[in-house]
């Protein structure tokens, strides 16, 4: 099942890339499409941040991940590189669990 999902999702992502290079330009140059599509990653990534920080399964929880996120926000504001943002968040969660 996992394999099917991995392969179907990969194929879908490839077709989306290919479509941009292949479809007639004017189909995709509609102003509404151009304005809406860039909003989707913003909403989805923000929703992923929220749900994976404040929930376990279907239960809302407040644990060390919230503190880890706060540290990640600080790192992002300080323009830290990607891996540093991830590493300081993981380290914060690991250290708080040791206490």
């Amino acid at each position: 099942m996992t394999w099917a999902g991995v392969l179907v999702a990969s194929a879908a992502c490839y077709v989306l890339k290919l479509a941009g290079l292949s479809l007639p330009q004017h189909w995709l140059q509609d102003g509404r499409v151009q304005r809406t599509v860039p909003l989707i990653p913003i909403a989805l990534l923000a929703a992923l941040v929220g749900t994976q920080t404040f929930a376990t399964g279907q239960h809302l929880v407040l644990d060390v991940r919230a503190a880890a996120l706060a540290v990640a926000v600080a790192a992002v504001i300080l323009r830290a590189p990607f891996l540093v943002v991830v590493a300081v968040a993981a380290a914060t969660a690991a250290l708080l669990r040791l206490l």
Partner: protein
Amino acid sequence: MPATRGIARDAVGIAIASGAYAISFGAIATAAGLSLLQTGALSLLMFTGASQFALVGVVGAGGSIWAGAVAAALLGSRNTLYGVRLSTMLEVRGWRRAVGSHFVIDETTAMAIARDDPQLSRYAFWVTGVALFVLWNTGTLIGALATQAISDPKVFGLDAAPPAAYLALLAPRLRAREPLAIALAAAVIAILALPFVPAGVPLLIVAALVAVFGAFRK
């Protein structure tokens, strides 16, 4: 030509940075329960970072693989618009288009559209695509293998890594007030919906709402 040397240097720099972030992808995917082959296949075949992080994030949080697949495809939709911007620049046909399509992502688009000369744009696109592909897949393997050696990913705080990764992907898109407001609203709506719907579905609700918002906004 010095211009191409500068582009190649920038491309390698971007590829090294992406390779480092592929290490965190490999780690997160493995901690989410994907096998080494599945993790490697995602970087090889999907090759678009945010989609890959979303798929393994949904699975890691207990969601179904199909909810993760839909989230990945939705995040991949922006690559279609990149393709539209690149198509006149690249002028690729046949097998070059089939291969080139795979490289249509954030980084290659940014590198290509930054050039005034179409020939340099094409060079920037291909050299960034190839360098990134190599290091992205290498980084993924390193992260996955390192994480397989760990018995409990939670001890290393790896469950706190995905939100930080999404945040780092999100941050460059939040340079104005409207995207920031959309991001905050999306996070709150997803959290509020979460207890009432299956895992992964809050993402689809948020995606539908933002599509409606985009369609009706002036």
